[in-house]
């Protein structure tokens, strides 16, 4: 039942001397949403491009639909939809012409495209802009159009490289809903994102990449259980007091992380940790207690914040 759609072994990408993807292995199951997380430059986009066969594999093995990306790129691309990290809509065409041309690239008939265009414009909430040129669309509208365009051929596998970057919260939630529906209909999704809530919401499985390697793999829940203690105490200090506090943190919690703006304590018992904070004379301006999230896993594994 759990058919593997994409399988990679020792997948490697090198740009001259730079190792962008370093011998990674993964299996992406049919009908699931698979996420790639990782800081800037981790190698996510390079991996997406190898899967979508627009970047040659330097070393290692990969199969997509059981086909070989090295020799059967055309057949693979016929069955996938690609949302690249950077929009590359054709600014000399209108909204619907962008869809039309893509449909033709996929060898679809005109009536087929016409019907699909109506659905997709509706899906992307761009029906009233069908004949508008692309240029004056807002960033979010362009993103939605790029996503709609990727779906023109009703792909079995959709590769989305940071699909919701630049979208407002409404648009993001709308898109999550659409992606969820897509999955319900049997499509497989591969998503990279810097939004941990997005990964938690959408992905059945995910990998965390750092410095060209996969450093962890699992379900969002599983990763949180594995890599982050149950609770988190966040402390914010007034200017200059953080450095002073740093020396008193040892032993307060099972682990701590000092970020630019705050200190994060990972613990199994937040009450106990808070008492410790008080008894050691730490005087934070603000204390926040919460449950661990994927973001904490990310911080732990990659040792820096996403937005640094």
């Amino acid at each position, binding site marked *: 039942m759990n058919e593997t759609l994409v399988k990679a072994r020792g997948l490697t990408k090198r740009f001259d001397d730079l190792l962008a993807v370093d011998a990674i292995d993964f299996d992406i199951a049919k009908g699931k949403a698979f996420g790639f997380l990782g800081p800037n430059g981790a190698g996510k986009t390079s991996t997406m491009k190898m899967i979508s066969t627009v970047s040659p594999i330097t070393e290692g093995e990969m199969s997509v639909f059981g086909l070989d990306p090295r020799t059967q790129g055309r057949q693979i691309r016929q069955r996938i939809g690609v949302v690249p990290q950077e929009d590359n809509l*054709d600014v*000399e065409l209108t909204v619907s012409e962008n869809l039309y041309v893509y449909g033709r690239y996929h060898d679809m008939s005109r009536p087929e495209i016409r019907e699909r265009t109506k659905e997709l414009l509706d899906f992307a909430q761009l029906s009233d802009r069908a004949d508008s040129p692309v240029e004056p669309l807002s960033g979010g509208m362009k993103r939605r159009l790029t996503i709609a365009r990727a779906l023109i051929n009703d792909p079995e596998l959709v590769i989305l490289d940071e699909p919701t970057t630049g979208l407002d919260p409404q648009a993001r939630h709308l898109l999550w809903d659409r992606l969820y529906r897509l999955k319900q209909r049997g499509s497989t999704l591969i998503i990279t994102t810097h939004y941990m809530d997005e990964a938690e919401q959408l992905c059945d499985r995910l990998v965390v990449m750092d410095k060209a390697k996969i450093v962890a793999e699992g379900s969002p829940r599983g990763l949180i259980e594995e890599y982050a203690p149950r609770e988190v105490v966040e402390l914010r200090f007034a200017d200059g007091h953080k450095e002073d506090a740093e020396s008193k943190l040892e032993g307060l919690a099972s682990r701590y992380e000092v970020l630019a703006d705050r200190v994060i304590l990972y613990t199994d018992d937040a009450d106990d940790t808070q008492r410790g904070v008080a008894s050691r004379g730490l005087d934070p301006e603000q204390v926040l207690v919460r449950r661990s999230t994927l973001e904490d896993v990310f911080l732990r594994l990659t040792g820096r914040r996403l937005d640094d």
Partner: protein
Amino acid sequence: MTALRAPLRFFESQLVAYRRTWRGTVISSFLNPILFLTAMGLGVGSLVDDGAGDLEISYLAFVATGLMAANAMQNGAGEGMWPVRAGIKWRKNFHGAITTPIEPGDIIVGRAMWTLLRLTVVQTVFAVIAVLFGALELGPALLAVPPAALTGVAFMAALTAFTVTRETDESLANMFRFVILPMFLFSGTFFPISQLPGFLELIAYATPLFHGVELVRKIALPDIDPSVVSSMPLWIHLAYLVAMTVLGIYFGSKYLSRKLRP
């Protein structure tokens, strides 16, 4: 036919975009031949024909056929440069296309098809205007269209390969300034290259425009005075231009693939 399906799809996308931009190019299609034929033919031509009456055909016919090849060269070279640069860098439509079943080679073959179509139209306009100017008879004028279009496609193919390997827009402008323009002036468009000093004549023999010009003249004006054309057989000109097209497409596809799929 199936091998041409993907290039045809890309060709079609060019048509879709052209629906909005054709007006600008139509004006130049008419204006170019009118200006050149007026200046060269009516002005210079009347002097030449009066002096040297030994041409079997009028100077106007000589220069009109040359101009058709040269005009096709300019249009073809333009097609090989700016839209290619745009597809890679500004408009980025090449990047979009290669995430679908389209391959880089399909893009170039599709663009060659598009150039062939466009040049056929542009050169037909040129031919008709040449007829109206009394430079050519209708039959020869129309016969000149296919060889002129081929000349343009050969330039498009070669310059596509060139453009893909260049990083700066400066190098494209220089290409026009230092290669295309001198060729326009010294490859037999306006006077037989036998009038060039020895070594320049040899260089002129090697230029693609010379072969384009000769091909157009020998096809359109079979009775032309043998002293104003070369003694090379027709097939050499044809083979030169076909080889240039094929090599341009081959290397263009190879370089474009490297460029679009790092």
